[in-house]
């Protein structure tokens, strides 16, 4: 692993949770190699700016909540830190 990659992996991703009851947060930077969210919490690598990450484990069929409202449902189990998008939510 290069020094640059190590630095990237130890960085924390900036993110915004729009409402206190949300179970997803939106990442706001391009540090796609990092595995930690600012303030704690896991994130899988590769999630791009503007995309969502699960803040808790979400069971298949459970609500995905952003802006304090149900924006969709998990179509498969989603682990905390996973990317939430059209592949696992509709």
């Amino acid at each position, binding site marked *: 692993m290069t020094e640059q990659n190590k630095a990237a992996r130890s960085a924390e991703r*900036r993110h*915004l949770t*729009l*409402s206190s009851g949300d179970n997803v947060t*939106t990442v*706001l930077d391009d540090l796609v190699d990092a595995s930690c969210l*600012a303030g704690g919490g896991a994130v899988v690598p590769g999630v*791009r*700016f*503007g*995309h*969502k990450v699960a803040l808790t484990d979400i069971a298949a069929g459970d609500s*995905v909540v*952003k*802006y*304090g*409202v*149900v*924006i*969709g449902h998990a179509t498969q189990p989603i682990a905390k830190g996973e990317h*939430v*998008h*059209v592949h696992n*939510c*509709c």
Partner: protein
Amino acid sequence: MSTIAANGFHGFVRPDGSVGVRNHLLVLSTVALTNRLAELAAEGIPDAIVVAGDFVRGLRGADLPLQARVLRALVSHPNVGGALVLCHDVPTSRALEAAFAGEGKPVSVQALMAAKGMTDAVARARAAASGVAHSLTGATRSLAPLSRLTVALECGGSDATSALAANPSIGRFVDRLIDAGGTAIVSETAEFVGAESVVSARAANQKVSADILAALARSEAFLSEDGESYRGVNPTQENIEAGLTTLIEKSMGAVAKTGSRPFVGCLTFGSKPPAPGLYFMDTPFFSPVSITGMVAASAQVVLFAVGVFNPSGSPLAPTLKVCGNPRTLAEWKDSLDVDVSAAVTDGASLNEMADKVELALRKVLEGEKTMSEAWSEGQIIIPSTKSLL
């Protein structure tokens, strides 16, 4: 920071009990034929606001009373201290004089055809404008409660930062405003298509829910008139690549500016809210049209969320541009009022950003000019229900 509830605002109290945050002299051309006369009449009168739109004669059906109602609402607007109203023919001027007789504010109506030549028409109009302007001098502000304040909510030039910073920051502020007894109106029905479950869950009662859902259904039918289902193509491939998963998530980007309090009513275009609270107004697409509807309903100020720049605004109601896009803020800093980009770039909280919105709004309520006022930017556009032949 002190909450907006504690302080109220200082404005110009009108005979009907409404409170202006400006004391404008309105020069209103009620028909496009007198637009040039309106410009000439306002020359040399500082701070006169000219409204000279594409107002036409020969309207039929619902369009005729709609245009008349909106033009009258502009004269009645709380931010208008007095008005010069221009029309083409003498019988119309008599009808307008009768209509404005009960306004309780100085209104002069001038018909172009009452003059003998353009030089005479300009002289008469300027004298009338000066007379109204003179009667506005010396007016003072007095303290008014927030129950006298109506804020219009709009967004345009939307991008990813609109959904994450500008709209939610406005939404947090709107919650404070409503809790403090103020009024807010949101419009542009098409933006709510997809968020039916949210709106109906937030409706204060069954009737409000049914009225808003009916407006959304009409809007969706209109959006799908070209044969392509709006719901079927949204979110678009571009939206999905940007991270939006569902249509409701996309719609929430705009709905976020309404905050989280209940919708207490569904208003038709330009109708005044009957009591304080958060209202939905059914208006067609295009932000200057929606803003016209909310300002005709007596909103004294507009909070406008932008991502990329959009010059929409109201000539009568100061329009604050709230932006969370750092590039737009750098390039259009001469046209934007509130920078909420720290929510995106620095991890700042939405409550801190709502504080910035509130602070800027307070200053504007007390007389500080918005960027759009400094540029004399703003449009009045009345929708038509039928296309003209």
